[in-house]
């Protein structure tokens, strides 16, 4: 984070530095009733107002004063003054400065805009008077299990949690709410634990069972549901910045869903949180890791990858590594480690050097930092390193194809052993050919010449043919001749000028230019044998016009061709082209060679005026338009006798043979290439996951100002010193980091995780700043409870399901959400938990609940991401890049899968999800905002998915809800809300239904329009008006506040 360097003395205005925040510690002003607690009352004050200039950041420390440490804060400064003199308020310069009226003297400087209030100054004075006791930041202290407090009402608590909460309520003179009714609890639990509403039958069974175990059994059922893992994964995907595209400019797709499925599965099989952590951070480094453990490491590959043209790869590789450090710190430690990227952390004891020591741990992944030019990018767009995840059938095929490659390589190696003899045999042939001084290109005498356009041919003395007579706009010449047995290895066509014609005289009509659109050749054996077409692979010309190159003859594209600037008299160059096959073609005895030269361009009269043909029997790879392409020194080496060749010459002959001449080696090589190609092609179809890997160690440095190219001192992997050290001699790498994160002595991990679970189930975390547990964290509402839960969680084996069960079986959780105005005034955020909180469902759950209530939900778990309804081309108005353009919603089951499977484009997510506060997944997010906007109303009222859900719910009402409108509507309400409507709700909905039915009966067209919106099939035998009216009733139910709330 770019914080300016300032270096000014204490009294000087400090205008620019990392800005600090107001953190509301609930107890900050409680000094009148309790003794001062440094961590609760003093540290937040010092941290917020003072640490930025007088805290851990050494470089920007002003006046040499450090206030985050007792001995430093009480030491004499260079100025001779002492900030804090324990027990002596008047001698403490700190007090003098914070209470000064002089704007040049007062601290913090007025420009910062964060004055210390008289109350706060009083608190500081009392604290100094009492000895200025320091204690380490609470979240950095080892987690010890506190005693469970005693309570007056011993009958109320069911769990230790209840005693902590009740003790505080009793202290405040407050009483907890009564228990919520059974139907509310059934829905609350189902939504919290599975993200889906309960089935009416499950609710009925739960309500009917009044045994004392019923509640716990219902919880167990939900925890055993495979949808539990899906619900648990949602926030984890936010933290992991999981998405289906690479992000940045192009934002093309990737396919890392196997990692997403690993997370769901890990929660479902209740993998302990410590193991969950280790496998995701360093599963690849475990001894003999399983495929699943390697897939788990995708956590730290879910970052964005920049593919913009013109980027400097190292800059973005560094960003990737930094992203991993920040994400890991944020997710597990609740720390903003990234603040130390450019300078020592302003609030927490993490130096810049320590940041880069962490960086070094994540720095060794064999990756480029960009998807550009990454040849290995493959399998669903995934970027290396990846792990292939074949099905068993795919695995068999892979093994087979890999074996083919191995065999082909072995065959090639065998052939290569014969290189010397093969090369010499060839050299002998060439030597013979060179000695015989035969021409590489030999003219041939046609037996027959024909023109498709009716022109005639006249032979010149030089063996060329002049074209005369009819002059058609296009033409095609066919030349048939005898060819000696042996081999045919190339065709050459010379175009020659004719005096008196336009331009350079090459073309018969037009401007003198010629366009040859195609040349075909075939070997026609005698008798009934079929003609053998020659496939030309290479074209070489002495001259070619721009955009009409020789190679265009081979493109096969209509309209392409070879042209020669024949209109220009100023170019005095031969216009000759050679066409060569990959391999020589065998020519049987008495065969004919049939050559067709097509000149079928759209340019009129660009036909050949005079030409000459030749063929060759030499090795095609050695042939060029001007003859044999032997390099000079190879030629010399070949001509020298074997015994006279120098070793260098011998090598040259062999290398030339190896690289250019068709024969057993090249054949084996082609076979190997083909095998490799089909292996690679098949691999692309096999699913894969992006995974972590330890490549060769890269050097790491402190990067000045955090810039990739400003390398300072080299650093080795290391861990921040303020947290417990690794066992001695234990090397620092990803695996030891992971083990350290989940060690019993780590003060942060368990606190962070139990706080986030608490936040999800109770609305607000025990620490309100669930994203930050550093010095700037809000003080916990129930610090002892937090520590008790963290200790409990660790000491019961980091057992997530057990822990969640503990929370949801508490009395606190089971309270009703009703609130009086007075209670609301006293505790608007429900920090004391004298009631349950009503919580707006997360985006995914809003949609899933609608799908489930309507019976449309397709509950399949996992697999590639899907395309539910979103507007056609939903992302096209802001980008024409990448392969996620032209969005088309599915019309099959994929349309109704749970929202977590929706294809997620990072630079523009699924709109309805974003409207309901899902983060965009560009960076790690551990806390979602919960807003209420008109756009959400529009989505629930009108989005096609929700209209289809209304259709589905209407059909359920009709099919399952009895015969009477009132019963059907009550059933629809029951299915959606988990409870029966009360009389007012029933009346409102039923009256509304009757009115709508009357209206739709009158307006048949409107009824038909509503009934046929979307793709849900209409129910058989139901009048359109009735179906439309039930649809609208369902639309109302799905838009009630209660429907998208967890109550």
């Amino acid at each position: 984070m770019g914080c300016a360097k300032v270096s000014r003395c204490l009294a000087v205005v400090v205008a620019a530095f990392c800005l600090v925040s107001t953190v509301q510690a609930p107890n900050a002003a409680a000094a009148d009733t309790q003794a001062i607690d440094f961590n609760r009352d003093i540290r937040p004050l010092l941290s917020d107002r003072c640490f930025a200039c007088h805290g851990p950041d050494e470089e920007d420390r002003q006046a040499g004063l450090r206030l985050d440490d007792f001995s430093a804060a009480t030491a004499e400064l260079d100025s001779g003054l002492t900030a804090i003199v324990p027990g002596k308020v008047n001698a403490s310069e700190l007090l003098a400065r914070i209470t000064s009226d002089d704007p040049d003297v007062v601290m913090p400087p007025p420009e910062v805009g964060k004055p210390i209030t008289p109350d706060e100054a009083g608190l500081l004075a009392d604290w100094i008077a009492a000895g200025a006791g320091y204690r380490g930041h609470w979240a950095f202290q080892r987690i010890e299990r506190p005693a469970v407090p005693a309570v007056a009402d011993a009958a109320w608590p069911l769990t230790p949690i209840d005693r902590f909460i009740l003790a505080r309520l009793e202290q405040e003179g407050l009483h907890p709410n009564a228990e919520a009714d059974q139907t509310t609890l059934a829905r609350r639990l189902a939504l919290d634990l599975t993200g889906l509403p309960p089935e009416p039958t499950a609710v009925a069974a739960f309500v009917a069972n009044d045994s004392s175990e019923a509640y716990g059994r219902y919880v167990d059922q939900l925890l055993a549901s495979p949808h539990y893992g899906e619900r648990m994964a949602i926030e984890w995907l936010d933290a992991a910045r999981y998405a289906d595209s690479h992000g940045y400019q192009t934002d093309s797709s990737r396919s890392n869903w196997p990692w997403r499925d690993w997370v769901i599965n890990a929660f479902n099989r209740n993998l302990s949180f410590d193991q969950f952590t280790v496998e995701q951070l360093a599963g690849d480094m475990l001894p003999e890791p399983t495929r699943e453990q390697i897939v788990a490491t995708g956590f730290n590959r879910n970052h964005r990858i920049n593919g913009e043209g013109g980027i400097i790869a190292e800059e973005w590789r560094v960003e990737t590594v930094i992203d991993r450090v920040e994400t890991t710190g944020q997710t597990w430690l609740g720390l903003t480690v990234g603040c130390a990227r450019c300078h020592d952390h302003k609030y927490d004891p993490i130096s810049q050097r320590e940041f880069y020591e962490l960086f070094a741990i994540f720095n060794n992944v064999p990756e480029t930092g960009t998807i550009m030019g990454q040849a290995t990018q493959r399998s669903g767009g995934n970027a290396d390193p990846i792990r292939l995840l074949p099905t068993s059938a795919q695995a068999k095929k892979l093994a087979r194809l890999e074996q083919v490659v191995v065999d082909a390589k072995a065959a090639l190696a065998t052939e290569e052993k014969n290189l010397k003899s093969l090369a010499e045999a060839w050299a002998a042939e060439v030597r013979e050919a060179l000695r015989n001084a035969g021409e590489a290109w030999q003219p041939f005498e046609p037996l027959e010449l024909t023109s498709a356009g009716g022109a005639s041919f006249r032979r010149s003395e030089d063996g060329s043919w002049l074209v005369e007579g009819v002059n058609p706009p296009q033409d095609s010449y066919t030349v048939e001749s005898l060819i000696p047995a042996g081999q045919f290895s190339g065709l050459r066509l010379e175009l020659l000028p004719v005096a008196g014609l336009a331009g350079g005289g090459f073309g018969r009509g037009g401007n003198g230019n010629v366009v040859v659109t195609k040349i075909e050749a075939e070997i026609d054996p005698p008798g009934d044998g079929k003609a053998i077409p020659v496939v030309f692979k290479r074209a070489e010309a002495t001259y070619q016009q721009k955009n009409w190159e020789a190679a265009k003859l081979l493109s096969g594209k209509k309209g392409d061709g070879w042209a020669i600037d024949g209109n220009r008299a100023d170019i005095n160059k031969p216009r000759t082209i050679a066409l060569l096959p990959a391999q020589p073609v065998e020519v049987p005895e008495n065969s004919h060679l049939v050559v067709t030269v097509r000149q079928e361009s759209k340019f009129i009269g660009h036909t050949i005026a005079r030409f000459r043909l030749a063929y060759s029997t030499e090795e095609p790879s050695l042939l060029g338009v001007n003859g044999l392409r032997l390099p000079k020194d190879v030629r010399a080496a070949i001509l020298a006798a074997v015994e006279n060749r120098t070793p260098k010459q011998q090598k040259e002959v062999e290398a030339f043979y190896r690289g250019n001449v068709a024969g057993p080696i090249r054949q084996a090589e082609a076979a190997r290439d083909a095998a490799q190609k089909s292996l690679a092609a098949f691999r692309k179809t096999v699913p894969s996951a992006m995974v972590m890997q330890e490549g060769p160690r890269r050097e790491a440095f402190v990067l000045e100002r955090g810039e990739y190219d400003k390398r300072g001192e080299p650093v080795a992997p290391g861990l921040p010193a303020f947290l417990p050290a690794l066992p001695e001699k234990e090397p620092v790498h990803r695996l030891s980091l992971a083990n350290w994160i989940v060690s019993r002595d780590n003060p942060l991990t368990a606190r962070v995780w139990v706080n986030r679970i608490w936040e999800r189930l109770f609305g607000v975390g025990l620490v309100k700043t669930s994203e930050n547990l550093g010095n700037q964290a809000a003080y916990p509402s129930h610090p002892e409870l937090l520590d008790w839960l963290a200790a409990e969680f660790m000491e019961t084996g980091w057992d997530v399901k057990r822990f969640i069960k503990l929370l949801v079986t508490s009395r606190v959780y089971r309270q009703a959400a009703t609130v009086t105005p007075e209670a609301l005034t006293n505790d608007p955020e429900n920090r004391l938990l004298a009631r349950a909180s009503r919580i707006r469902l997360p985006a995914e759950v809003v949609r899933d609940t609608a799908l489930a209530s309507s019976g449309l939900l397709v509950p399949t778990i996992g697999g590639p991401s899907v395309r539910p309804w979103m507007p056609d081309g939903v992302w096209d108005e802001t980008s024409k890049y990448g392969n996620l353009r032209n969005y088309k919603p599915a019309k099959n089951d994929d349309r109704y899968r749970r929202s977590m499977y929706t294809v997620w484009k990072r630079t523009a997510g699924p709109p309805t999800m974003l409207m309901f506060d899902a983060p965009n997944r560009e960076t790690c997010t551990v806390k979602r905002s919960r807003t209420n906007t008109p756009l959400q109303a529009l989505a629930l009222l009108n989005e096609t998915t929700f209209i289809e859900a209304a259709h589905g719910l209407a059909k359920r009402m009709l099919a399952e809800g009895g015969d009477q409108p009132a019963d059907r509507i009550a059933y629809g309400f029951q299915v959606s809300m988990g409870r029966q409507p009360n009389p007012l709700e029933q009346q409102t909905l039923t009256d509304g239904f009757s009115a709508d039915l009357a209206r739709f009966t009158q307006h048949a067209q409107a009824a038909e329009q509503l009934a046929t919106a979307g793709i849900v099939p209409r129910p058989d035998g139901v009048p359109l008006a009735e179906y439309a009216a039930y649809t609208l009733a369902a639309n109302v139910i799905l838009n009630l506040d209660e429907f998208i709330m967890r109550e």
Partner: protein
Amino acid sequence: MHPLQPLHVQDQLNRRVFLGGAGGGLGFAALASLFQPASARAGTPAAVAGFPNFPPKAKRIIYLFQSGAPSQMDLFDPKPQMEKYRGEDLPDSIRKGQRLTTMTSGQKSFPVAPSMFSFAQHGDSGMWFSELVPNMARHADRWCMIRSMHTEQINHDPAITFFQTGHQLAGRPSIGAWLGYGLGSENADLPAYIVLTSFGSGRPDDQPLYDRLWGAGFLPNEHQGVRFRNTGDPVLYLADPPGVSRDLRRATLDRIATINASRGAALGDPDISARTSQYEMAFRMQASVPEIIDFSDEPKHVLESYGPDVHRHGSYAFNCLLARRLSERGVRFVQCFHMGWDHHGGLPRAIKGQVKDTDQATGALLDDLDQRGLLDETLIVWGGEFGRTIYSQGKLTENNYGRDHHPRCFTTLMAGAGVQGGLTWGATDDYSYNIVTPDQKVHVHDLNATILHLMGIDHLRLTYPYQGRDFRLTDVHGEVVHGILS
């Protein structure tokens, strides 16, 4: 004292009613919601609100973002002396080892490509414009032309993200979200921050835009810009389902309100009535938005002034007129993004396409606002995310050249409320490569600080606490460019 600090309770209650739920912590800025008209915020204590910090010069902004980076030396920063260096290599004394994108860093030479276009002075101020933008030039005495803009970013994604959010990486709130957070909305029926997009004809496929450019980052989500779409519903899901008339929708909303109210009474949760009021807002938007995009009430001469494209939904001209209509109705921040300015090759042809899209409509927008007396209270900003190089990317020929990205100097124009018309601010060297007026350099952070200033906001004070830090749009930088203010 009560541990829950009753002093803040009323404020928190108000917030809950307005925002309908817990957002982030309390900042110093007003907690005005996206759709909450200023009058309805009366209950928010002034001591917490405090915004604007001082009387604003500008009430509203229309920001014409030219995405892809227009070439300053072909439009606004004439360098006729370059003709004599045509084809010569850019001297090292000018380049000074500055990093280049990998699109040209491998080039063997960096041949100087003088602009093909001629420049002339315009207006009383004698401001220079190239022949490409005659209609912008008509307003010479209204524009403040900043030739000394600079940034650190050399690639599109990070550069435009930096412009919009003050940071090159994703995650921070956009400038419009900050404004909405600080100032709220003037119009009860429309969002405070509206985004319009158009593709350019110079390079029809360039450059992509990203949701984060108008995103709320860590601010409460309701502050994100609402992008009007060019096809289908102008605001997503605005249209009622087929067969549901306005009357019918009204009737269903009444039922929802009745049931919500009874639930609210039973539970005592004020969030429930907040939900109902958002449904009312949605209902009003269903009327107000279609009315705004329907230009049939515009006089013919106004439509004509914007050029024929004004009739094409999703064109720059259409968006300019729509911006005026939105602005007129109190939408505080309208941002038009026009794509297609990334001219690595074939610049002379491509830039002609871009100015054909933009020049007439930009000129017309200024006239139109002026004729309605709105220009004095509306700030206009015109510019892209960085500049372009004097040297040619790819081959330089007589009538063709391309230009790579250039961060060290480029031109941005401002007009309207609070800026000095006819002022040319800052200057560049002969190669338009480096800024030669050290006391008139304008960094992206400085520009953003200045924009906030014109809206009555001290950029140092508009902060939001997140992850233990108070963040602001200008990070720890930014100085208001007082020299360009009127």
